[in-house]
């Protein structure tokens, strides 16, 4: 059998997804036996024009990590879509927007202002902002255009599979590698993780889901083995897809929701607010006010990884 052709790309990402691929350690040799890696900017010296020169559908599988927010990332998403038989949204950013999608709570203008003018470390008296085109004596310099919002990969091009996780776990990556090796990939559209919620897979003891105070993680040291939500920590398990192996909750850290909404849940943040509100024992207006104060940043907490993929997708602007 001819070797598979594999491509990996990072768009708007931190690099953690690429590191996760390397975290499969010696199994990377199995990948090298199974596939020729034809494009992987973090590790190999292939350029964009090498990809552009490939025939359409000549890449068997492309693992695409990161969100799409610039004309360069959009170009690569479209290019790799055209060249790949199977395109995988790899990691929470490509699947749901991820942490970068929290930028959708601000406009592009606000972000530029903050990053290049307001930030205390700046020295920019002329208030210069990055331009897509700049004339210099040597000619014209260009930069990719920054879009108004953070997009998921599937909002730009059709995607076959979704591998959530910040980053996807080694077990899931190996599952995909094995599926490729045995030619047993699931039907297109599948999310490669569990179909249950994290709560269903969590081994902590769940007793009485009633809380009277919400703590932030630095405020208490939770008791091991008891449900973290019952101890007043905002654990996203009730509305987060499982399949991660419950790595965080096993080490006393509440789930942050990186695997996104479980099957059948269109909006993870809304589901989480409803889960938390239903267990908080609020009988008076004071109780309610206290609860609202205890959750300092609800949008950032409940949509930590999924704002691009939520029903609202971004902060709504008043157009009047």
């Amino acid at each position: 059998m001819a070797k598979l052709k594999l491509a990996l790309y990072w768009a708007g990402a931190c690099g953690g997804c690429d590191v996760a691929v390397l975290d499969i350690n010696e199994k990377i040799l199995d990948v090298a036996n199974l596939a020729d890696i034809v494009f992987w900017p973090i590790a190999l010296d292939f350029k964009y024009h090498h990809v552009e020169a490939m025939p359409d559908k000549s890449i068997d599988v492309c693992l695409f990590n990161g969100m799409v927010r610039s004309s360069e990332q959009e170009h690569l998403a479209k290019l790799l879509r055209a060249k790949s038989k199977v395109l995988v949204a790899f990691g929470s950013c490509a699947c749901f927007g991820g942490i970068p999608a929290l930028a959708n709570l601000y406009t592009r203008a606000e972000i530029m202002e903050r990053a290049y003018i307001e930030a205390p470390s700046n020295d920019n008296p002329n208030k210069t902002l990055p331009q897509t085109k700049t004339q210099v004596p040597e000619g014209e310099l260009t930069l990719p255009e920054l879009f108004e919002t953070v997009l998921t990969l599937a909002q730009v091009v059709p995607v076959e599979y979704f591998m959530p996780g910040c980053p996807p776990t080694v077990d899931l990556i190996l599952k995909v590698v094995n599926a490729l090796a045995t030619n047993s990939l699931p039907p297109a559209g599948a999310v490669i993780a569990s179909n249950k919620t994290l709560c269903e897979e969590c081994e902590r003891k769940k007793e009485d889901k009633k809380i009277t105070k919400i703590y932030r993680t630095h405020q208490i040291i939770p008791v091991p083995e008891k449900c973290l939500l019952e101890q007043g920590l905002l654990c996203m398990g009730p509305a987060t897809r499982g399949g991660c192996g419950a790595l965080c909750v096993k080490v006393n850290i509440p789930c942050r929701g990186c695997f996104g909404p479980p099957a059948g849940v269109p909006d993870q943040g809304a589901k989480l607010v409803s889960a938390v509100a239903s267990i908080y024992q609020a009988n008076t207006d004071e109780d309610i006010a206290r609860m609202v104060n205890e959750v300092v940043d609800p949008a950032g907490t409940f949509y930590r990884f999924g704002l691009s993929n939520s029903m609202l997708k971004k902060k709504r602007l008043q157009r009047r």
Partner: protein
Amino acid sequence: MLKKMLAQLGIEEQRVRLDWVSASEGDRFASIVNEMTEQVRALGPMSRDNGGKNG
């Protein structure tokens, strides 16, 4: 908490209301529904886009 979160997301507070009406308070139910309907009608349709390159 939902209201606080919706405010962060740019949704007007007047679009959400939680009230409690007994089954025997038909008039009160009708008047609350009418008030809410008028309130939302006054705000007009909720402009919403799906994000994208130019917002």
